[in-house]
């Protein structure tokens, strides 16, 4: 039932959204997910493993794949993994994580920094 789109994907040769490598990670997920759904601790371990082995870009690809396949549980899981990875980290760290560059005018960014100065306190070391 979750995999009607998968068949479509395989049929659609021009599909750029999901590479083969990602498909092999996402597709076994439902089985793994069902197995460890009840056990939160295992989920955490799996998440740690995922964070260690998977580069942010890979994680994005996983998210895009899960989104394309309409696989809500996997999507939620990956989003939570990303959220945990960037929690309490510095702005530079998060920018690097997402490959973002600031596109603010110099004054603009400073203004924002000042306005929310308190949110930058007490972050982890990079």
């Amino acid at each position: 039932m979750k995999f009607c789109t998968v068949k479509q994907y395989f049929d659609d040769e021009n599909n750029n959204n999901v590479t083969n490598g990602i498909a092999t990670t996402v597709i076994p997920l439902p089985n793994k997910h069902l197995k460890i759904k009840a056990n939160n601790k295992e989920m955490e371990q799996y998440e740690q493993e995922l964070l260690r082995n998977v580069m942010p870009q890979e994680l994005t690809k996983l998210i895009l794949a899960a989104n394309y396949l309409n696989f809500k549980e996997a999507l939620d899981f990956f989003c939570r993994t990303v959220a945990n990875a960037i929690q309490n980290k510095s702005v530079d760290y998060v920018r690097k994580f997402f490959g973002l560059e600031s596109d603010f005018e110099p004054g603009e960014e400073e203004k924002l920094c000042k306005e929310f100065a308190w949110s930058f306190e007490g972050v982890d070391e990079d």
Partner: protein
Amino acid sequence: KSEDLFLRLPDDIIESIVFILPIKDAVKTSILSKRWRLFWMKTPVLNFDYNLIESTQLKGCIFTVQTVDEDPFQQKRLLFVIRVNNLMSLWHGSKVNVLRVHFSLGKEFTPQLDQWITDAINMGALHTLDINLSFGLHPYCEAYYGNHEKYYDFPSRLLTKEKFSTVRHLTLKCCNLTPSCSFDGLVSLKSLALDIVTLTRSFLKDMPSHGLELEQLSLKKLRMDRDCKLNIDLSKLKYLAIVDCERLRGININGAVELNEFFFAGKHEYCSFKNVPKLVNVSFNCNTDDDYEGVLNVLTKFGHHLP
């Protein structure tokens, strides 16, 4: 190329990620880039707690309000309220699903608390309201719970069916549910937890004896005007906890057919059970020998009613 990838993440997925973050981190994302500036402002989950001010050194904070007492914690309270007000004024989402305020705030902050709760309720999508004003710090911490006069009065005008019908989970700690608060607004609740709350007897008596959706009920250290008997005849109730409610002089559990877990601390001879086929976990908290005897009493009297 890696930048391309993240740029291809649609807005709603980035929002999902930002909405999961604690408020402090969510607000930080506004500085990542222009695209990220406004995501946090639509988060439907508002959790305001000690993290908002935890890392702030108070030295150098300028307050225009003179703090009457020299209580350093009063400064923290003011700072907390200023920050929450700031965030609420910037926030422009379309709905609030969860509002949590976990900080030691008393009666003097009534206008602000009223405002935050009213704003959240008025958007019509609030399902979890958690106002825990006990946060560990004197003079409102548990050891001082006699000081109910200093507690926040939860606005009874919000506890109506019309306003409160979307709320499914309500937790109140260190508040007063008087005057004229009726149970009317709470009939759609799935879980209710009242801890160190002042109530009138009529409030509990108003609790309909059946037909409620309530699955979890927790009553702790309630402060009531008069002695009261409580009849628990809630057909969907799965979890019941009654702790140190001195004025509850009779607790009849009759017809709570789904009741699975019951935790009790107090005068045990006031409990009675009937028709509770699923009751599996029962805990009585015994502090004195009298208590222990009371428990034996209850169990022998009603043992045959318990599965």
